[in-house]
């Protein structure tokens, strides 16, 4: 969903859909903050990602396995 120009009423409805009931006196401020965040993040739509994967990492080796094999206790790399 595109949140550009989200109105207070749309913010209330969308929040409710996410399981977050907003009191009526918060609709306007939350919509304004959401719109500001969107205006910043939307810049990323300019990029041509081609085959670039997300930087999130998945490690099949769990911490439990790492402990049993004596591997380090640091977290996953970026």
């Amino acid at each position, binding site marked *: *969903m595109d*949140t550009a120009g*989200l109105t207070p009423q749309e*913010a209330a409805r*969308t*929040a409710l859909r*996410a*399981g*977050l009931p*907003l009191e009526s006196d*918060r609709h306007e*401020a*939350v919509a304004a*903050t*959401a719109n*500001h*965040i*969107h205006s*910043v*993040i*939307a*810049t*990323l*739509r300019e*990029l041509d*990602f081609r085959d*670039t*994967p*997300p*930087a*999130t990492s998945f490690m099949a080796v769990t911490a439990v396995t790492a402990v049993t094999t004596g591997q*380090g*206790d*640091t*977290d*996953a*790399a*970026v």
Partner: protein
Amino acid sequence: MQPYELSLADAARAVAAGELSPVELTDSVLERIESVEARLQAYVTVAAESARKAAARAEQEIARGRLRGPLHGIPMGLKDLIDAAGLPTTASSRVRADHVADGDSAVAARLSAAGAVLLGKTHTHEFAYGLTTPQTRNAHDHSRVAGGSSGGSAVAVAAGEATFALGTDTGGSIRVPAALNGVVGLKPTYGLISRQGVTSLSWSLDHVGPLTRTVRDAELVLAALDGRDRREPGGVSAVPESGDLTGLRVGVPRNYYFERVSPEVEESVRRAIGQLQELGAELVEVEIPMTRYIQAVQWGLMVPEATSYHEGTLRSTPDLYAADVRILLEAGEFVSAGDYLRAQRARTLMRDAWAQMLGRVDVIVAPSVPMTAVESGQDSVRWADGTVEAVSDSYVRLSAPANITGVPALTLPVGRDHAGMPIGMQLMGRPLDEATVLRAGRAYEVAAARSDAGAGQLAPVAA
């Protein structure tokens, strides 16, 4: 000089030589807390009794010839996002009013194993979601912000209320308050230090690291946190004191890092860069890549991750959050999965572009923050080009790239502005190459100590 004024390295040397006992040192720091804490508000919780007991245990062990290492018997503070068994982890929030940690975080366990003495838990901007830490006052000027979110840790170290402290850094939360209070802060490489038992703001951007009075001290704490002190019993390899930087390629950004920066900050940092050159470093101009997308990536990752972390309590106890944090968490519900994935993909591009840049230089040098500590309550700053920027956006702007790319980043004090407020310089290096970043910082620190009052001085807070 009182024991609370000693740097970690000097205190460790005195303890090892039998000239200072951990009990004397801890008592001195606790007395310092008693005399200045009412004005500074660096701590959420001070655990004086357990600290004195831990110091007494350290003293007995050392007397029996069982010195564990440089942190043995050294009093320190933990940011109140970091679990320590039996103490509340409040995150400086009413949401966590009844919390008690049932175990040590990985870093608290490491420090405990190294023999460090836990003084208490230091204030954070609520749940680390902010850059000012409003409960705490700047150690150099109580009318100004402490910086955040590790404001309590920075102020405690700056004012002699802890010999060192730990903080967390998601967009600059170690480096910003360290710079604003005139201390050293290190954000290590992403993933180097365990975050187990540390309350998250944003899993993919969070880092744990030390705040200290000198670069040398940061190196000592890092060694305990990443386990080098265990692998190398008998001593952590010291950064050479000679300070010769011949052969070191220092990248000086031609874009981004010196834009919308106060003239006094730029002047101090450029003077410090000149000092690095005098020490033998080769200065290389570099172009910082993808700067247009830094804030978008930072927000695209942090905002939805923070909202996800707080999903339950935002619905069950929303009124317990401070207003500034609550609205960000609520607005984070509107960031789509597509937005988040674009941020993660852009992060891949940015990380790769930085790796290319760091193939040509060993470290990158820049201001840590664009301006010194602002007055409490100031919301925005107007720059010479006419633009107006939120204070929080300004403080995070020069720190965020190292969180996104995961590279190690150090801040150290390099001067003062006209009002006497500290100015910080940032050194960033290749992933897992903390040694080079620390070497450059230490060389500057040693050289600067010869020419002025030197590193490790406390903020002038009257007792």
